[in-house]
Structure formats: structure tokens, C-alpha cells
């Protein structure tokens, strides 16, 4: 039995690794990705908004816990995000940019998430994992809690995408495997929703392909194509559609059998919003397998976030954030348990 703290560390490490691995593949087609890398398995650079916004969401939970409200979240945007935007708001998605514009106009939630056009963006789904960590084994509470955050910046399917991911992570934190995590995601959204329909389609496609297909090249290519056919919107140039990204990410978890590297590498091979797909797949499988489930060579590449998207979180490391969300026995007054990255690398050599 993997301890909750270990699952929390695996979850956020997996999220950060999936984000970083997928970043160069974002908005590429699967065939472009194949031509350039074959299978993209090695992290090339840093993570993006997925990791930094997840760190920010975790800080809200640490402060407000289960009492978190949309008003708390809106206040945090006003006090911690907006003042540090001195020029362009770099590295933010449409939903966050639209929310900041709405807040600047003096609007309050839920209008802040309704008045911009990108309510369905995956901006909440990409940062939903901390809510699942915070509610191990309780998908319903994780979904309720992430919605408090989501109401500020999303609406409709964007909120549902966050609920689905938080629920899947909460289930994984409680020991669920891939199928059970997907069931938890489905339990957190109405059956009559785009998210539920896409999750069911993606699950059916993976089930029809067989569990080992994600690892075999030709079969994996066929699965990629079938998943695109099932859930990808053809006539729209932006790829951050939550019902699409969440379905592709959880399909990757199923296709990879819940194993971190297999799931995340397959997830980013799908292209589209590859960094967010990788981040979600990494978070869910990292929670399933714990810190040691994340390949060591990936973990080595994850340092403190730079704050390039959210200056307020600069310098935070996801492992410290995980320890705050789900303290291990040693955290009861003791120092954080993050190994010294330099020491780790030295030992590796």
C-alpha cells in the first residue's frame, strides 16, 4: 500500500513531468510528433502554465482547505496574480486572460468565468490535481472543491473537465486503478455532458484496441488515430478544449495501464494540447504509482518552478507543495523530505 504522501509527491511530480515532456509537442499533429521524435520520451525543457497554476491552486487549498470559496479565489487573483502583471500576461491561457479582464472590469464570480468565450478551456483541468490530492479517496469532495476555483475562471464544460480530473486523482489517491479512476471522473460530471460523452467514447476506443497497444508502435498509431476521430474537434484551431483534453488524457491513462511513463508518453504523442494532456495523465498515474512510479530521469529534470507564467509561485518545488497538501509522518514538525537534486544527480553518476 503506497502512503498518501508518496502518492501526492508522485502526482505532482507526474504532472510537472508530463507538462514539461509535452510542451514542445503542443499544437503539433501526431504525425509531426512522430517525424520529429518517433516517440517523445525525454524532457527537453521546462514546464508551463499547467505546473505553475497547479502550484497556485495548491496554495489556495493550504490556506483555505475545504472552506475554499470562489470569493477566496477571486481575491487571490486580485492580490497575487493581477498586481504582478506589468505587461503582457505571459504563459496564460484564454480562460485566465479573460478572467483577469473580467476582474479588472470589477465583475465577481460566477460572471468572471462566464463573460469570456473560453469557459470550456482546460485551464481548470490542468490545475485540478491538487484538489484530488487534498481529498484522497473522496472524488465527490474533490469535484466540489475544484469547482470553487473553476467558477472564477470557467463555465460549463470547463468546470466539468476540472471536476473529472480532480475526481480521477482523488480516486487514484485512494488506491484506484485506471478503470476505477475513469469511473470516478464520470461520476463527477452529468451523463448529459460533452465531457461524459467524450470520456465514454475515448474509453470505448481504448477498450476496443486492447491494453498492450499503447506500447507497440503500429498499434499505438492506430489508437492515436482512433482517439482523434472519436473526440478531437476538426474545425477549430485552438486545442485547449477541456472535454477533448480530459478525454485524451484519461484515455492515455487507460492505454498505459496506469503506468506513468507509458501513459504520459502515449498522452503527449496525441499532440493537440499535449502539455496539458501529459500533465493530467502524469498526475493521475503518479497518484496511482507514487513518487517512484515517475521515471528518475524525469524527476531529475523537475526543479523549482520559474514563475514565467505566474510570478507569485516562482521558486516553489512541486514536491514541497505535495508535502503541504498531504503531509507524511515526517512532516509533523520535521523538515520537508525533498531530496537535494544536486545530490541525487551526483548519486546517479
Amino acid at each position, binding site marked *: 500500500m503506497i502512503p498518501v504522501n508518496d502518492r501526492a509527491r508522485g502526482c505532482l511530480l507526474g504532472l510537472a513531468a508530463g507538462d514539461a515532456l509535452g510542451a514542445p509537442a503542443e499544437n503539433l499533429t501526431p504525425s509531426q510528433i512522430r517525424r520529429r521524435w518517433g516517440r517523445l520520451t525525454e524532457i527537453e525543457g521546462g514546464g508551463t502554465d499547467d505546473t505553475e497554476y497547479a502550484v497556485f491552486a495548491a496554495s489556495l487549498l493550504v490556506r483555505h482547505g475545504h472552506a475554499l470559496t470562489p470569493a477566496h479565489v477571486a481575491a487571490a487573483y486580485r492580490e497575487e496574480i493581477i498586481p504582478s502583471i506589468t505587461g503582457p500576461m505571459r504563459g496564460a491561457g484564454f480562460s485566465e486572460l479573460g478572467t483577469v479582464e473580467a476582474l479588472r*472590469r470589477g465583475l465577481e464570480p460566477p460572471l468572471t468565468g462566464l463573460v469570456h*468565450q473560453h469557459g470550456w478551456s482546460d485551464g481548470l483541468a490542468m490545475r485540478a490535481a491538487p484538489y484530488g490530492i487534498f481529498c484522497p479517496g473522496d472524488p465527490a469532495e474533490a469535484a466540489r472543491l475544484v469547482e470553487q476555483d473553476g467558477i472564477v475562471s470557467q463555465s460549463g464544460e470547463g468546470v466539468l473537465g476540472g471536476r473529472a480530473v480532480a475526481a480521477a486523482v482523488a480516486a487514484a489517491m485512494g488506491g484506484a486503478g485506471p478503470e476505477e479512476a475513469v469511473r470516478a471522473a464520470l461520476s463527477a460530471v452529468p451523463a448529459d455532458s460533452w465531457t461524459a460523452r467524450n470520456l465514454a467514447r475515448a474509453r470505448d476506443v481504448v477498450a476496443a484496441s486492447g491494453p498492450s497497444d499503447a506500447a507497440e508502435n503500429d498499434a499505438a498509431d492506430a489508437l492515436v488515430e482512433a482517439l482523434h476521430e472519436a473526440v478531437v*474537434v476538426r474545425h477549430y484551431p485552438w486545442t485547449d478544449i477541456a472535454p477533448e483534453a480530459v478525454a485524451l488524457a484519461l484515455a492515455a491513462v487507460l492505454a498505459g495501464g496506469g503506468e506513468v511513463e507509458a501513459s504520459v508518453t502515449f498522452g503527449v504523442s496525441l499532440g493537440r494540447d499535449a502539455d496539458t494532456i501529459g500533465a493530467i495523465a502524469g498526475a493521475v498515474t503518479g497518484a496511482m504509482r507514487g513518487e517512484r512510479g515517475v521515471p528518475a530521469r524525469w524527476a531529475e529534470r523537475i526543479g523549482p518552478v520559474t514563475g514565467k507564467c505566474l510570478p507569485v509561485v516562482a521558486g516553489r518545488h512541486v514536491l514541497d507543495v505535495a508535502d503541504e497538501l498531504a503531509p507524511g509522518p515526517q512532516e509533523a514538525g520535521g523538515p520537508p523530505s525533498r531530496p537535494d537534486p544536486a545530490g541525487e544527480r551526483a548519486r546517479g553518476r
Partner: protein
Amino acid sequence: MSGERIRGAFAGLAVGDAAGWPAARHRAALHAPWSRRLHRELDAFAEEHRVTTLPVPFALNQPVAPLAVGPSDDAEWLAWTALTIGTPRADAFRALAGRAEIRARISVATALDNLTKGVEPPASGHDNPHHFDDSAAVRAVAYGVLGRDPTQDAQVTNAGDGLLGALAMAAAVSEAVASGSAASAVEAALAVLPRDTAIGHNARVALDAARAAGDPFGAVPALDAALLDHVYSYGVGAAHTVPVALALTAASGGDLRAAVPAAACLSTLADSAPALTGALTGACGGLAAIPPGWVAASRTLAGCCLPELAGTDLIELTGRFTAETTGESTGVSTEGIA
């Protein structure tokens, strides 16, 4: 008088459609693809050389008529709606699926894909990244002049604010055709726009901004500041275009000659806000109140989105549509249809 106002709604939409700058881009679809490629390359040249002389749609070795002032996408989709209004809506759209030559908004293109995959309404309009756009609001003008509910049509391609935009346009056009009153038309639209939706909130913000500015042209900067989404890349959101149309209709007292030019000045929304504004004010004032030169330039469809409509006279079509769907001949009173 109502037949006159029905023709005013259709002609007004076409005039507004023609008045917005994107009409020339849509109409350029009638030219050879290489001319549009050259346009894109000239755009890149302007960017590279930092010259502010921006390229415009042009007709090198091709007929210039498509680039004259004239109607484009919105007038054609309204005409298509009038022509197919007797067909169950999913069937009418399904007949378009797979036709590579037609052009449509993202909501419509996605809905056609959904229908092909067996995703029926309302999911076809809901499971749609542009469920919020105003494609159904444009088509709702056909339902509004008849006093009919546009929901079945709107749900094929839209949901949420996109559906509410259609309901609001139908309600406002219906009231304008019945009474000619801009104020009553705007009230009818507000009655179907809940305050806790983006479109309902924005409609009231836009009306306040326009009222404070005093006249339509004077309201342009205030509408831009209070309402417009300069973050997102496409300007056809019903939560923006419909509120602007309502606000400019109110501020102009239903005068198309004041309202449509103001809508065309909001460049982000110029693809459809002038058309919606033209439909509302055209319905208020009737065909005779629209400048004849604009009617003459805007009544013949170009076929830039639906090629089979090239050459169709929208005013004649409106007469046939009204006669067939109401059982009354054109030009006579159709009071009571609302």
C-alpha cells in the same frame, strides 16, 4: 405595414452584413485561391517591412464585382434558413454535411461534423467549441419575422449564449415587425435574457453604455471599453454581437442609418454586429426607411458561402417566404403573426 417591416428585417440584415469590413474578405472567396494566397503573402510582406499600407482583397485578372459593396455570409445563411424553414432542422443541416465547397462559422462546421458522427441536437450544438457564437442569432431573424420559436434551429449549431442570442433576436425582430418600436423590441429581447448569463449581463451593460453616450456613434468607444473581448481571437460571440445590436437599436430609436454605421465601427464585431443591428432596425423602420442605394447594393446574394444562392434576390425571396409561410401575399398586412 408588417410585410414592409419583414422585408426591412431581411434587407436590413443584408445591408449591415455588407457594411462590415469582413464582407469583402468573405466575398473574396469567389476569386481564385491564389488571389487569397497572395493577400496572405502581402500581409506577411507588410509585417516584415513594417509598412502600414495594408493589403486589401483585390481582383488581379479577375472580375471585380465580388469585391464591390455587397452582402456575404450572414445574408446567405438567413436566405438558406428561409428556404429550408419547412424542413426539420437537423435534416436541413444534414443535407449540407460533406459539401466541401460551403463556408460557415465554426459552430456550423462542427455541428455538421457532429451530425455526420450521429451526434444529434441538442448535443450537436452543445458539444461544440463555438456553441456561443451568433450563427443561430442570424438565422433567428427568419423565425422572428414569423413570430416563431427559433429553438429547434438554434440547437443544431449552438447552446448557452448562442441559443439565448437566437431567442433574443427572434423576440426582438418579432416585436419590431409587430409594432415598429425599437424600445419594445429591446424589451422583448431582454425578457428572454437572464441577468446571470454573459449575454444577459452584457445586454444590460451595453444598453447602459449606449444610453449614457446618447447616440450610436458616440457610444462606440464606451461599448468597446465595457463589453468587447480583446483576448479571444474570434469576434462573433453572441454575448457581444447581440448586446451591441440591441444597444445601438435602442440608442438610434430604430434608425438603421445611425445604428449600422456605429456597429461597423466596432471592428472586432464588424462581421456580424452590423448585420444583426441592420435586421433589428430594418424591422423597426421597414424597407422604405433603408437608403435605396444600400438596398440596391445588398439585395443580390453573392454565393460566397452557399454557392447555389449566387444571384438570388433577397427581397424577392423574402416576399415568397412570407407568402408561403403565412399564407398571405406580400405587401399586405400580416399583423397578428407575432
